[in-house]
């Protein structure tokens, strides 16, 4: 029995036990359901072993939505706890765990998965490709992300959650102050999903550089593809830094090294530096694809081509470069001289310039456009003023000397939510609504969607704007409660109310999926939005080979040209198509990584060794395997196309 003691949760509460039961019941329900409806085979063949970028994209997005609800539940708990002074709904330790898992889940497992899911689904279609450069590696990326996400999410019922914040600063995250296995979970969950992300980065750079349709030069790529290319370059350069930081953190916690300790020559600030050398580029990894989505949506619904294409590309390149030169702004107050602070202050403020250029380009795209106020467009229009407020408060934070006042207060919390929610989350919802018909063949209901938008936007303002005020008044972040005398009570209550509106918005959005699934018409055609780029030239649902004939491109809006200016997209005749085979290896490999991570978290070395051998076994198997994919014969393509009424 002693062996099992380690899995007990250190700070149990009725809520956690209830979640355990809920998790157990859901798992049992899923297993019974799949068995009863005889869906195991279907699930395995069509989804778990798929290497199709569209399906992998959808699995990313579904996982991201699940994580959004996990992180959302954490958020509501935090707002509930701080809604009134001296509240006792959560104690300090629980509050620590909740804000930590909230941050990690939202950034790593929600936002990252969402943008990578979008890239997966959209990029190959936008460039006229049949899949990504390394389809099997793509599946491995997804399943590693999934393994990492699951590992992180079981922490609160097995062994205890991490509790040192998503930034996980040492020495707080060391064994002295974080005694449970929680931070070990942090290390391995991020490590495993981070490896997957790095491979995604490589995969998409090669895909975009090498697999574009004939005629699509770099400067004729749709803007979302450009944003994906730049994002993936940032990924490739930023993620290895995290890999090493996590490795050193693991060694410190589990092998007694002194990298980040304050004794024996260690240096705790090294963690903070490494973390933010990755962390700041990471926030741009999140926002650039969002910018890409806004560019697509705003051009489509203003019915004009994007204003300032070259400056859009140039500003993204500049942002990606500068994103590596600003990391110190996260710890101005932690003991640098004025020179260092001054330099990083200036680089940080400078990064607002290319961002501003983009804002003006979107505004000028809408200028004189015939705007259609659809749901994706509403999110894009809402994004512009709200994100600008976030940017301006960012510049305020960037002034090093002033930062001494609001560093680590609710003001900071308001700032980064102000850029992440109207920036990233709005973009994801805009993109999801926009590409939904391409994914599923029907539209989401516009009326419910608009209600969702208004609830989310107003809820956002009510939830976060009060924090600017309490933050300037000195309310510290990550504090589980405050006293009556501080006077923070009413504004925090308002904030809780706003969070409630946001929760309603997400429920509306989910309800919309259900409603539209039941009631939306199915024959929406391949181009329901009257859009401009190549993905809309495919039939609905997109056949697994995407394009029967490789399109020929002459501009960044080839599809628009084919509709309006007589450009002929599909000139060549149908030939047999080479496609990759499905494979069970990725999910098995990820399962082994999960076992590896889990065993490592608890220091169960036999498990670690067996899983590691299994992982190497999979790799060895792969190198000897002969797998040249398969061909789809011309007759089959023509038949499919006839059924779907696609390419001429």
């Amino acid at each position, binding site marked *: 029995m002693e062996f099992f003691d380690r899995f007990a949760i250190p700070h149990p509460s009725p809520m956690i036990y209830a979640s355990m039961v809920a998790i157990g019941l859901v798992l049992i329900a899923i297993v019974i359901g799949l068995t009863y409806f005889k869906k195991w085979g279907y699930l395995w063949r069509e989804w778990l072993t798929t290497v199709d970028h569209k399906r992998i994209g959808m699995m990313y997005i579904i996982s991201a939505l699940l994580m959004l609800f996990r992180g959302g539940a954490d958020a509501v708990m935090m707002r509930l706890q701080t809604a009134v002074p001296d509240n006792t709904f959560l104690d300090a330790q629980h509050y620590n765990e909740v804000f930590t898992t909230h941050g990690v889940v939202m950034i790593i497992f929600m936002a990252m998965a969402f943008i990578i899911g979008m890239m997966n689904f959209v990029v190959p279609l936008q460039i006229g490709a049949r899949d990504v*450069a*390394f389809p099997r590696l793509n599946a491995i990326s997804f399943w590693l992300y999934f393994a990492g996400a699951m590992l992180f999410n079981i922490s609160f019922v097995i062994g205890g959650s991490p509790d040192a914040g998503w930034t996980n600063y040492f020495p707080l995250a060391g064994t002295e102050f974080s005694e449970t296995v929680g931070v070990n979970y942090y290390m391995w969950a991020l490590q495993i999903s981070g490896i997957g992300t*790095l491979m995604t*980065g*490589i*995969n998409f*750079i*090669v895909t975009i*550089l*090498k*697999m574009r349709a004939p005629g699509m030069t770099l400067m004729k790529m749709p803007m979302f593809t450009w944003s994906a290319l730049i994002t993936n370059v940032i990924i*490739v*350069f*930023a*993620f*290895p*830094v995290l*890999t*090493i*930081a996590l*490795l*050193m953190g693991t*060694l410190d916690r589990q*092998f*007694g*090294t*002194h*990298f980040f*300790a304050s*004794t*024996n*020559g*260690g*240096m705790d600030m*090294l963690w903070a530096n*490494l973390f933010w*050398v990755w962390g700041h580029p990471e926030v741009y990894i999140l926002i650039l694809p969002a910018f890409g989505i806004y560019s697509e949506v705003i051009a489509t619904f203003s019915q004009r081509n994007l204003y300032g294409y070259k400056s859009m590309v140039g500003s993204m390149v500049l942002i990606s470069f500068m994103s590596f030169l600003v990391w110190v702004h996260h710890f101005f107050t932690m003991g640098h001289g004025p020179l260092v602070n001054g330099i990083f202050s200036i680089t940080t403020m400078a990064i607002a310039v290319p961002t501003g250029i983009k804002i003006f380009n979107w505004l000028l795209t809408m200028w004189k456009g015939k705007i259609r106020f659809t749901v994706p467009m509403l999110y894009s229009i809402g994004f512009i003023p709200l994100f600008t407020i976030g940017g301006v408060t960012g510049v305020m934070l960037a002034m090093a000397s002033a930062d001494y006042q609001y560093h680590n207060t609710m003001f900071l919390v308001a700032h980064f939510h102000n850029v992440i929610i109207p920036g990233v989350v709005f973009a994801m919802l805009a993109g999801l609504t926009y590409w939904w018909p391409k994914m599923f063949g029907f539209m989401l209901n516009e009326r419910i969607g608009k209600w969702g938008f208004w609830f989310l936007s107003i809820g956002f303002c009510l939830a976060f704007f009060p924090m600017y005020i309490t933050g300037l008044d000195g309310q510290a972040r990550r504090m589980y409660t405050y006293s009556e005398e501080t006077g923070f009570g009413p504004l925090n209550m308002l904030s809780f109310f706003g969070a409630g509106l946001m929760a309603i918005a997400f429920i509306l959005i989910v309800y919309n999926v259900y409603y539209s699934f039941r009631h939306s018409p199915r024959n929406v055609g391949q181009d329901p939005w009257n859009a401009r780029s190549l993905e809309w030239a495919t039939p609905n649902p997109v056949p697994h080979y995407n394009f029967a004939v490789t399109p020929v491109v002459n501009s960044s809006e080839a599809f628009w040209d084919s509709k309006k200016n007589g450009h002929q997209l599909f000139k060549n005749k149908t030939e047999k198509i*080479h496609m990759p085979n499905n494979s069970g290896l990725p999910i098995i490999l990820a399962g082994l990584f999960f076992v590896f991570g889990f065993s490592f978290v608890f220091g169960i070395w036999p498990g670690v060794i067996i899983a590691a051998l299994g992982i*190497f076994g999979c790799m*060895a198997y792969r*190198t*000897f395997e*002969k797998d*040249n994919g398969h061909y789809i014969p011309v007759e089959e393509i023509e038949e499919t196309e006839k059924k779907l009424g696609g390419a001429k």
Partner: protein
Amino acid sequence: MKLNNTEPLEYSTNQNQMNILGFWIFLGAEIMLFGTLFASFFTLENGVGSGPSGAEVFEITPVILETVILLTSSFTIGLAIHAMRINNKKATLAFLGITLLLGLSFLGVEVYEFIHYYHVGVTLQTSAFSAILLTTLGTHGAHVTFGLFWGLFIFLQIKKRGFTPETTNKSFIFSLYWHFLDVVWIFIFSFIYLKGMM
């Protein structure tokens, strides 16, 4: 599969070209990985705590030996790829085999070196300096170990299947990997050992 006969076999298909480009990008990531290790090393170099410093424990002989062995192996893998280009299977296998043997002896010396550190009291737990030293060397060593298995598997594949677009592509990529590890070693040699001994 379209074969392009004007290119060497390892570049002959689209997929092959993408594999090679992808691997170059991967090496870019590896540069960041080792770059981070070096940056951390320079930060913690003087954090010896109560343990010994580099100057006190580094031994020149094994380090020189390791350097010579690894540099030679970089040369022989180059010869192997050259032999592959002129379609000489026997020579390719021979040079690849020599490369792997050299890699193995490199590891042997490195193990000796680690045992030496253990005896003079430099372990992972001694100080921040010892930890980053062993982590950096260990990461490089782990890469070499991984490369040994990978190279062995490629050896077996060439032996069995001869030169195909796949086997030549894998060999070429492996050679990039091996050269890269050599370059990393040169940095380790210059900035960890030489600088530390001065």
